[in-house]
């Protein structure tokens, strides 16, 4: 549905420009829509796995790779600070923005800090590793836990 696409783009472009989630009213203004239509679209976009909503159905918890709440995975790009949902999404933020950035996170076991510069061609050489506890088939069973 064309309107859903415009609403999805409004959400993602707000995140990209501001580093934090938009309100339904801000999405409606940007998409040339109204709040009721935005909230209807949110439900469909959740089903398509491009949004994760809070229980109120109006607040955006995730618009992957962006997180609507603070996390331990922080990306600085273009003078804006973004929160990512997980280690994968931490690299997804500069990939989505097509901008160089710096990923700040930590080792899941030791807490040692990770500072990883990513340019448009990719990250600087690094021996760090990524590990997912859950297999791919289970990721969306509970995406917040994943």
């Amino acid at each position: 549905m064309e309107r859903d696409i415009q609403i999805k783009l409004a959400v993602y472009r707000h995140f990209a420009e501001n580093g934090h989630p938009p309100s339904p009213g801000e999405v409606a203004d940007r998409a040339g829509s109204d709040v009721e239509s935005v909230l209807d679209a949110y439900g469909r976009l959740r089903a398509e796995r491009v949004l994760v909503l809070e229980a109120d159905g109006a607040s955006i918890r995730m618009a992957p790779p962006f997180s609507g709440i603070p996390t331990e995975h922080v990306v600085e790009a273009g003078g804006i600070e973004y929160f990512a949902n997980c280690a994968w999404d931490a690299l997804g933020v500069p990939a989505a923005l097509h901008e160089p950035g710096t990923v700040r996170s930590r080792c899941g076991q030791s807490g040692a800090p990770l500072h990883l510069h990513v340019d448009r061609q990719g990250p600087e050489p690094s021996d760090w590793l990524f590990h997912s506890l859950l297999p791919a088939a289970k990721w969306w069973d509970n995406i917040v836990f994943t």
Partner: protein
Amino acid sequence: MLFFRSEEEVHEWCTAQGSPIRPLVTIDQLWNLATTWYSTRLQEDSRRPRPDEMREIFAGVGLEGDFWDPTLDTFG
């Protein structure tokens, strides 16, 4: 989905969690996945990969086996 500084620290974490160690992914492999998933996310025609496409994407960066098969619901 976490970063780890070394394989030893992944093992320590999994032991503490009582979980088996899962396949390890390098930063370069992760970048390939991140760009495949998200490089068009701000564009009008973006969409998530379908499950069959996901299998191919994982295999393309050297990640194969049941763990990376999004259509399997029997993997523990």
